[in-house]
Structure formats: C-alpha cells, structure tokens
C-alpha cells in the first residue's frame, strides 16, 4: 500500500468512523427518548424524606412526661459551630433542676452537623422534618422550639412540683419517723405509695 492510498483510506476511516460514532450516540439518546422520565413533579408529588433526614433541630416529646427534657445545660450552645442556638434556663420554683425557659434556633445559620444532638445529655434534641421553609425575612428562620411545649410544660412543672413536694413531705415524714420509731412503718408505706404514682 503506498503512502497516498494509505492516507486516503485513513481519511475515509476517520470520516466513516466518526460518522459511526455519531450514529451510536444518537441511538443512545433515541433509546432514552422512549424511557420513562425520572423527574419528580415536586409540588404535585412530595418527596419521601429519608429516615435520617437532617433539618433544623427540634425538641423530643417524651412519652411519660409529654414534654421535652431540656435542662438548659448549655452544652449544645457551646458546641454549635454556627452559634445558632440560644437558650435561657431557670430553676422553676420548687424544683432543683434547671429547665429551659427560652430555646431559639436560627435555622438560617444552622449547618445541620448534628453536634448538638451528639452532646445532649438528656437526648432531648432531634432533627425536625422541615424541608421546604421559605421566607422573605431572615428572622422567619428563628424557631422558638418551646412554643408547642408551653402547656405541657406547665402541666409537667405542676406535676413535678407536686412530686417534689410529696417527695419532700415523704422525706420529712421519714425524718420524723426516724425521730419517732413508733410511727416509722406507716410513714415508710406512705412514701412508697407516693413514689409508685
């Protein structure tokens, strides 16, 4: 084969090979033309959020107390890399443990790293399922996490106070019993009944 004829065949091979590669590509797109679209029509069909979906944090509502268990230990506030949590806590009247009185999260700042959830000693933090929040103002993303707990919190505190009071009463009764050995069994029973409630 001479150089010129080889050049000619190479030219033809290039042109025809190129043409073939183009047709192969067109075949692929054609095949996809008849496949089902993969898009989700968002507002019409909402996505199923994954089980671990991370979003703004929320407080867990515990079964037995019907309220959260934030004790305002401030650990999450300290660990938050985005400084988006603001908590105020106070010892409610008649109680020894602190309770959160204000719990604000600025979701606009949050980076959903989950460190606050990791460090929470009472496991009262979880991810919420918010995924489509939009607003014109940034302060719309500042969530007050305690709003939905206000009523339950009052009830819980009332109950806790009673419990504490009863405990206190039982304690005093026990102390009295220790002082007065005769009445001891009755007082011990009374305190046990209270604890079982």
């Amino acid at each position, binding site marked *: 084969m001479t150089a010129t004829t080889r050049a000619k065949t190479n030219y033809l091979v290039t*042109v025809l090979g190129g043409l073939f590669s*183009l047709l192969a*590509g*067109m075949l*692929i*797109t*054609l095949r*996809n*033309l008849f*496949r*089902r*679209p*993969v*898009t989700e*029509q968002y507002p019409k069909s909402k996505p199923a959020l994954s089980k671990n979906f991370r979003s703004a944090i929320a407080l867990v509502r515990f079964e037995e107390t019907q309220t959260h268990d934030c004790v305002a230990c401030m650990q999450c506030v300290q660990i938050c890399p985005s400084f988006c949590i603001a908590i105020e806590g106070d010892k409610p009247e008649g109680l020894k443990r602190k309770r959160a009185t204000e719990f604000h999260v600025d979701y606009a700042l949050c980076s959903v790293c989950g460190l606050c959830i990791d460090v929470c000693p009472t496991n009262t933090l979880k991810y919420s399922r918010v995924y489509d929040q939009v607003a014109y103002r940034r302060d719309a993303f500042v969530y007050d996490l305690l709003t939905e707990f206000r009523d339950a919190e009052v009830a819980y505190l009332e109950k806790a106070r009673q419990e504490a009071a009863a405990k206190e009463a039982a304690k005093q009764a026990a102390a009295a019993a220790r002082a007065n050995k005769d009445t001891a069994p009755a007082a011990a029973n009374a305190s046990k009944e209270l604890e079982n409630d």
Partner: protein
Amino acid sequence: MFNQLFGNIWLVTLASGAVIMGFLTVNALFLVWLERKLSARFQRRLGPTEVGFAGTLQTLADAVKLLGKQLITPRNADKPLYHLAPVIVFMPVVVGVSLFPIDRQLMFVDLNVGLVLVFAFAGIGFIGIFMAGWGSNNKYALLGAMRAVAQNIAYEIPLILSALSVTLLARSMKLSAIVEAQSTLPYLLFQPLGAAIYLIGAVAETNRAPFDIPEAESELVAGFHSEYSGMRFAVFFLAEYSNMAIVSMVATTLFLGGYHGPWLPGYVWFFIKVYGLISLMMWFRWTFPRLRFDQLMSFAWTVLVPLSLANLMGTAVVLKVFRR
C-alpha cells in the same frame, strides 16, 4: 413576471407578507415548544407541563414575558447597527419563506431562479448577525459575530454545491419544477451524499449544535446576541427558529419531494417532512457536543467542500453518460 406581480397584485403581496409573518410567529412558538419537549424526553425529563395542554402555551407565556422586559442598549453601542441588526436578521427570512411550493397550487412567488434567491437571502442574515456583534460593543458578541460570518461563508459553499447537483438532475432552478420532477421518487435516493452534505451544512447555517459556536453559551456567554434583551432578543430567537424552518423547507423541496406523498394532501406532506427534519436537527443538538472553531472550519474545507465537489462532478458525469 415580477412586473406583473408588483403591477397587478402588490397589495396581495403585502397581504401574503403578513400571512408569512403570522406563520413564522406561530411556527417559532411551536418549534420552541417542540424543542423543549423533545429535549426533555431525550434527557428523561418532562419539559413544560403547566401552561396549556402539555405546556403548549408555555412559549406564548414566555413571549408575553419578553414583551414586558426592559430593552437595554449598552452605553457605547454602535446604535444604528445595534438597533438595525434584529431587523436585518429577520427580514430575509420572511422573503425566504415566500419562495417555497407548499402545495401544488400553494406558493407565494414562483421564480425561475428561486433556489439561487433562497441562498442569496440566507446570506443577508449573516450581515445582521455581524451588525449585532459589532454594534453591541462587547468582546464576546464580537467574537461570536466573527465566528458566525466565517462559519457561514465556509458552509455556504458545500450547501450551494450540493443544491447544484439537484438542479443538474431537475434541469431547473425553479423550486416548483424541482418538486414536480420528484413526483415518482425523491432525489434523496439519487443524491444520498448530496442530501447528507446539505443536512450538515444546513445545521451549520442555522448555527445549531453541534455547530452553534457563534452563540456557544459555555464559551461566549450568548455570542452575538449577548447584549440583546426583551423583544429584540425575541426577534433573534424568532429568526433562528424560522431559519431552521427555511433550511428544512429547502431540504424538503430538494431532496424529499416537497408536497408529494401518498394519501394525505400535499401541504400536510410538506409540513410533515419539514417538521420531521427539524426534529432531526433537534435530535442532533441534544446528542452531540460542540465542535471547536478551527475544527469546524477544517471540517468544512477538508471534508464537505471536496465531497460536495466530487458529488457535483459525479452527478454531471453520470448524467452525461446515462441521459441523452
């Protein structure tokens, strides 16, 4: 012939001009919708679905939106050129459409040299593109314009050469005569190479992917129409889609037998063929990457021009030998 046309019925001519404008507008609206739908399906999406049935009115809504947009003129633009450019781009398209035999009796102007005139008017559009690029006083626009002109000069040659081999077969440059000559078999069967060259050249002439380098959005932002907004931009868009229709009409007339076809009326066949070709061009666009400028030029000069010349000469020789 032209005297009679203008002498007797020049009002009719104006009226048919209006008809053509109307057709082009509807055509562009339809084609934009078609392109969106087709591209979506090629990419396994749905495309527009909201406005009108299956999103058919989406482009109309977009056009209305464009009407309300601010018209921006760059401060240091060459104003006469900048403002004239959309008009110059669009004007030849209107004339171009009038030359095609849509059905046996349906044709606005039937000239003996219709084919030459089609290509002649196609050439004017590039001046408009150039004016747009130069007038915008924007480097991206200017680069786009330079590319457009160089590209169109390069691709016009194989385009015309492949069309010439058809005129050799039909022995006429009258578009109606060319169509009539294909009443039994379309010239596609006699001129497969010519048809292929024409198709490639046509895609390049309309600046469509993979030859869309004058407006390559990943390189030149939007090329020559970077600085146009609102309705001025819409006119460029209209011209682009109308140009697609025109080159498809030429291809239909030259290679696919125009309005000829069984059972259905002629104009239906004509439009089936035209829109089929346009869909093919859209298929190209949504499959291929873009060529580089120098590759584009060397492809024209080293592949298409020699091939089309060989095709033309081969056609002439064969005709000389086999047809007395």
